[in-house]
C-alpha cells in the first residue's frame, strides 16, 4: 500500500490544496493577530467570493484567473465595510459579542445564498479544467498547479505588505500595542478595517484559484472554515509562518487521510488534529505561550 507511485501523487495533490488552505488561513490569522477576534464569517465570505467568480464566468464569460483584479478589490471593500459598519459597532468592547456577530453574519450570508442559488453544487467549465501536467510519476491537474503557485504568490504579497510597507508597520504596531499606536497618530479603527479587508481579499484570491478545480454551493464555506481554524490553531494564532506551514501540512494530511480512510472519514484526521492541538498545545506549533 505504501508505494511511492501512490503516495507521491497524493502528497503533491495535498500540497496544492494545502497552499490554498494556507492563503485562506493567512487571512484569518491576520484578522486574529491584529484584532484579536475570531472571524467566524470567514467561510461564508469565501463562499461569497466563489459565487462572485462563478457568476462572472457564467454571466460574462470572464475567466476565473482574469477575475482576480475584480474579485480581490471587491472582497477587500466588503471586508472593510463589514468591519466598520457592523463588527466594530457590535463589539461593545467584548470579544464574545464579535464571535456572535460574525456567527450571525455567516448564517445570514450562507442562507441568503441558499435562497438565491438553491443548494445545488455548481462548477464551471474552462478550456484547461481537464489539462494535466506530468510531474515525476504523477499527473497533476493544471488548475491545481496554478492554484499552488498563485496561492504562494498571494501569500508572498501579503507578507510583503505586512513587513515592508507603512500600512504593515501600522498593522504590526496596532497588533502589539493598540493604545501606544493610537498615541502615535495611527487611526486604529482604519487599521482594523484594513486588516479585515485584506483578510477577505485573501479569500477573493483563493476563490479565483479554487473554482476552476473545485465547486461552489451555499455550504461550501463550512468545510473550509473549520479547516482554516485548524491551520490557524495548529500554526499558532496570529503566526504567518505557522499558517503557511500548517496549511501545507493539513492539505497533505487530508489527502493522505482520504487515500487511506476514504473521502468522508479522511476529514476526521483534520478534526482530530484540531481538537488535539486545542487541548494540548493551544498556542500552536509556532505561537509563543500566551
Amino acid at each position, binding site marked *: 500500500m505504501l508505494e511511492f507511485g501512490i503516495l507521491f501523487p497524493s502528497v503533491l495533490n495535498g500540497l496544492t490544496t494545502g497552499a490554498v488552505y494556507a492563503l485562506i488561513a493567512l487571512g484569518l490569522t491576520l484578522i486574529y493577530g491584529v484584532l484579536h*477576534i*475570531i472571524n*467566524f464569517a470567514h467561510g461564508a465570505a469565501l463562499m461569497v467570493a466563489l459565487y462572485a467568480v462563478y457568476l462572472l464566468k457564467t454571466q460574462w464569460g470572464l475567466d476565473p484567473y482574469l477575475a482576480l483584479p475584480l474579485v480581490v478589490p471587491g472582497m477587500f471593500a466588503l471586508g472593510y465595510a463589514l468591519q466598520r459598519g*457592523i463588527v466594530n*459597532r*457590535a463589539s*461593545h468592547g467584548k*470579544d*464574545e*459579542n464579535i*464571535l*456572535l*456577530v460574525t*456567527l*450571525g*453574519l*455567516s*448564517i*445570514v450570508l*450562507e*442562507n*441568503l*445564498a*441558499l*435562497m438565491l442559488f*438553491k*443548494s445545488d453544487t455548481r462548477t464551471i467549465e474552462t478550456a484547461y479544467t481537464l489539462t494535466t501536467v506530468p510531474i515525476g510519476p504523477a499527473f497533476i491537474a493544471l488548475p491545481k498547479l496554478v492554484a499552488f503557485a498563485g496561492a504562494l504568490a498571494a501569500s508572498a504579497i501579503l507578507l510583503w505588505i505586512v513587513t515592508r510597507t507603512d500600512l504593515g508597520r501600522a498593522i504590526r504596531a496596532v497588533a502589539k500595542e493598540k493604545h501606544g499606536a493610537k498615541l502615535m497618530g495611527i487611526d486604529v479603527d482604519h487599521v482594523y478595517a484594513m486588516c479585515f479587508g485584506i483578510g477577505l481579499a485573501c479569500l477573493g484570491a483563493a476563490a479565483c484559484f479554487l473554482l476552476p478545480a473545485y465547486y461552489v454551493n*451555499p455550504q461550501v464555506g*463550512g468545510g473550509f472554515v*473549520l479547516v482554516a*481554524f*485548524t491551520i490557524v*490553531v495548529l500554526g499558532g494564532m496570529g503566526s504567518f509562518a505557522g499558517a503557511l506551514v500548517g496549511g501545507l501540512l493539513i492539505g497533505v494530511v487530508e489527502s493522505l487521510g482520504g487515500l487511506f480512510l*476514504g473521502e*468522508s*472519514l479522511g*476529514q*476526521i484526521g483534520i*478534526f*482530530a488534529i*484540531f*481538537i488535539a492541538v*486545542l*487541548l*494540548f498545545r*493551544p498556542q500552536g506549533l509556532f505561537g509563543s505561550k500566551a
Partner: protein
Amino acid sequence: MGRDLATIAAFAAAVGALTWALDSGVWLTFVMLALYATLLAQAWNILGGYGGQFSFGHALFFGCGAYVQAIAQLQGGLNAWVALGLAVAVAGAVGSFVGALSFRYGLKGSYFALVTLAFAEVFRILAVSASFTGGGVGLMLPLQESVANLQFGSRKGYIGVVLGFVVAALLVTAWLRHSRFGAQLQAVRDNEDAARAVGVDPYRTKLGAITLSAAFMGAAGAFYLQVFQYIDPGIAFGPHVSVEALVGAIVGGMGTLWGPVLGALVLHLLADLTRNLFGQLPGLNMVIYGAVLVLIVMFLPRGLSGMGRSVRELWRRGRG
C-alpha cells in the same frame, strides 16, 4: 426561590390550559414547536447564560439524544420511555466528556466555541460513515401510535412531554439562581480568577453546568425523533440546532429565567410569520435568525428581556 416556583407553576398551568382549550391542529403544532424551541434555548442558557461558556456545537448533544433514542428502540428493542431515559443519560455523559476535556485544559471563549463546533462535526462525519446509524440515509422510526411507544395520535400528548421537560429546565434554572452551586457558577462566569481565589473550583462547576445543559439537549433530541420519527446526520449534528439554541437564548436574554422562553417564542412567531408572508423558501428562517442575532448583539446586548435597561442606557448616552 418561592417567586420563581410560583411563576413556573403559573406558566405550566397557563400552557396546559391553553393546550386543553385549543382545538386546531395548526395552533397545537405551534405550541409544541415553540415549547421545543424553548427547551433548546433553555438548555443552552444553562451553560452559556449562567456558565458564560458559549457553545457553537450544542447539536452534538441533541444529535446524541436523537440517535440513542432511535438506536435503542430499533436495534436494542427497548421501550421508548426507557430509551428516553437512556438518551438523556448518554447526552449528559457526552457533555461531561467534552467538558472534562475542554475545561481540564482551560479552554475558554472562542476556543471553547471552536472545540464544541469541531466535536459536533466529528460526530456528524462518524454518523455518516458508521453503519449502525444508518449512514447518510439516517434512521426511520416506524409509526406505532400508543402512549407506551411515546407516540401520540394528538399533538396534545407531545405537548405534555415537552412541557414536562421545559418545566424541568426552568426548575433547574431557578435552582441555579438560588443555590450555592448556581452562585459559584455565576461567579466563575463573571471572574474566574476571583472565584478561584475564594475557593470555588471552576472546573467542577463548569463540568456540572455542561452536563446539565447537554442532558436537556439530549431530551430535546429524543423528543424530536419521537415527533418527526426520522433523524439523519445533518439534522442531528448540523449547525441548525446549535444556532437555534443559542440564538433563542441570546435574543431573549442570557442568564435569565424567562429570557430564553421569550426569545424562543419571538423567533418562532417571526419564523412562522415570514413563512406565511413569503412561503416556504429554503434558508429564509435561518436568514432571520442570523439577522436577529446580529441586531440584538448590536443594539440590545441584554436581549429582549433586558430591553428596558438597554434602551435607557442608549438614551442616556445619546443625551450625555
